């Protein structure tokens, strides 16, 4: 091959692949992304839609894509109702609110609020509480492992990781017995402690990686300039570890928010979270799928919001450091 030919081959092969993707490649990549988005988002959309269907529409076959929206599902989710005879309902004073009216159409009257709000509050307190604790403890431990000479550091780290080497449910019975002794069953504190214990090992490992990446010089500079170790950690290390902390927090929250097995086993009333509560809805007066879908929608909202709020940090986490050194 002549030199000129070689050169033309080289420019040809690099022109598109390295500098910019060709329009066809771009279109193909875009198509893949859209396909993936549809596959993942569709079930979610179906749930959101089902929440606005009537009970008969929800179980109609073939499934209805176009339907008359109703808030029955949400009303049913938030209320406890009793069935009455039409005569009885006719004798009642006219309904005061739109949801009273909605319920009476189905020959029922509202007897009081359902337990969904307290369950949801439990989920919030337990989920965010355990996430905060796990990330807080994890950050301190990860910083210590990253910066100090700790005897047997490797063994300790392995020990911490080993708590994740079996499914947590494998220790369900011992934990149940232990919690009964300690009066921690069906308490928020008990659930927070449990989820923190499961999450903290993940937090230590993830955060250690992030903190290792931050050069020691930053905090050493701060130490020389007059800060104490803790001040340097707070003012210099943490701002730079925000990305890692955000990512870790999301992982921890997703686990404790979705956790089902322990929640079923250890909570029944006071401290019950959303995951074991949602199946209860199915049982009350027929299979009320719209109410279940409404509960699921409600359940998904906080975690989506949390992720969207921290998304900026997550994205920065991908590009941060890519162009340095």
């Amino acid at each position, binding site marked *: 091959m002549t030199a000129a030919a070689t050169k033309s081959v080289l420019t040809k092969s690099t022109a598109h692949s390295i500098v910019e993707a060709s329009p066809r490649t771009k279109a193909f990549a875009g198509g893949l992304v859209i396909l993936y988005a549809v596959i993942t988002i569709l079930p979610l959309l179906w749930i959101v839609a089902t929440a606005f269907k009537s009970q008969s529409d929800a179980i109609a076959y073939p499934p209805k894509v176009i339907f008359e929206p109703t808030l029955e599902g949400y009303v049913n989710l938030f209320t406890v109702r009793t069935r009455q005879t039409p005569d009885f309902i006719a004798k009642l004073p006219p309904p005061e609110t739109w949801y009273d009216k909605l319920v009476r159409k189905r020959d029922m009257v509202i007897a009081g609020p359902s337990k969904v709000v307290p369950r949801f509050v439990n989920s919030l307190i337990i989920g965010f509480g355990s996430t905060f604790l796990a990330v807080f403890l994890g950050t301190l431990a990860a910083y210590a492992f990253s910066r100090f000479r700790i005897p047997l550091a490797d063994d300790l780290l392995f020990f911490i990781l080993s708590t994740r080497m079996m499914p947590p449910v494998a220790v369900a019975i011992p934990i149940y017995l232990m919690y009964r002794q300690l009066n921690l069953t069906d308490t928020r504190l008990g659930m927070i402690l449990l989820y923190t214990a499961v999450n903290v090992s993940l937090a230590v490992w993830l955060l250690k990686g992030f903190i290792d990446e931050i050069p020691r010089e930053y905090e050493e500079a701060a*130490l020389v300039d007059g*800060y104490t170790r803790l001040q340097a950690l707070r003012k210099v290390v943490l701002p730079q570890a925000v990305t890692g902390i955000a990512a870790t927090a999301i992982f921890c929250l997703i686990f404790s928010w979705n956790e089902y097995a322990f929640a079923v086993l250890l909570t029944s009333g006071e401290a019950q979270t959303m995951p074991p509560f949602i199946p209860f809805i199915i049982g009350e007066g027929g299979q009320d799928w719209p109410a279940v879908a409404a509960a699921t929608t409600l359940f998904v909202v906080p975690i989506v919001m949390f992720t969207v709020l921290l998304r900026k940090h997550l994205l920065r986490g991908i590009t941060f450091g890519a162009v340095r050194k």
Partner: protein
Amino acid sequence: MAQIRIENLRKSFDQFTAVEGSTFTIDDGTFFAMLGPSGCGKTTTLRMIAGLELPTEGKILLDGEDVTFHRAAARDIAFVFQLFALYPHMNVGENIGFPLKCQGMGRREIRERVQETARMLQIEHLLSSKTSKLSGGDRQRVALGRAMVRRPKAFLMDEPLGALDAEFRHLMCGELRDLHDRIKATTVYVTHDQLEAMSMADQIAVMNKGRVEQIGTPREVYDRPASMFVADFIGSPPMNFLRFEGGLRSGDRAVSFHDTRLAVPEIREDRASAPLALGVRPEHIRFADAGAVRGEVFGAEYLGTTQIVTVDTAYGRVAARLPSSASVRIGETIGLEFNAARLALFDIGSGLAIRTASAEGVRHG
């Protein structure tokens, strides 16, 4: 400003000893360079002076006060790191003002001091920039500004120019020295680059394997190296060593080098016969037909003003620095003549310089 005194300072990490019992004094206002290959303990020594590392043994005195175990923040010294360690979440002004903020100084005073420092370093226009947008040299200036703003007793610098490219490094050397001449702060400067140390320092401590091999002015360490290590480490190409065996008598002005007598500076100590090395800097070699040592030209490196000619002799390969005008043919046999007044003698066993009229009074570490 301060005098720094190091006494029998030692630092071990588990089995490994990083710094072995060195003792020296850095006078007030001195630009003091610690020079050595990587792993020689220079950075560890610096970090102990800063308080970022605690010594295993020994003492560190700042202006006579024992600060060995004081916290870094309590020592009133400033540290400039190799990677600058500018806080990425702060802009230039905030970075420079950070040490003052640590001390709890008022906001207005901080702003004034930051302005003043920036003016001195000519980076006033950058004060509100992001540090990530700066060039290497400007980052270096900001790092210096952060060190200067507090007006500390001493500056400690750990290879501050190591991350810059060669051209810029030279420029910053000049700036650093200029800055030192203006503020006259005691500066301890760690580097593995002999050019940086030679061009800036008042005093150089050459370190090797945790020990200080020699302390002296750039001229002293170059002209009168205290040990074979120093002679080899400083100078490019390094000093040539020609091995021979023999005894020495005080007052002699020549040594028996193999079959001939070679003139050397007057010897000032008596020694029984032992393996010795004759040290010759490349620039103290001339080609002369009458030269006592003969060899064959192996190669020549043209450097513009001079050329480095390597010659294979019976005692090993020797590098000579000749004017670039000299014509040299590869393979040609020539004689080498040494500048007698500038020769050095070393004891190969200990690696230390033998006392002669030219190598008198060198300070070992």
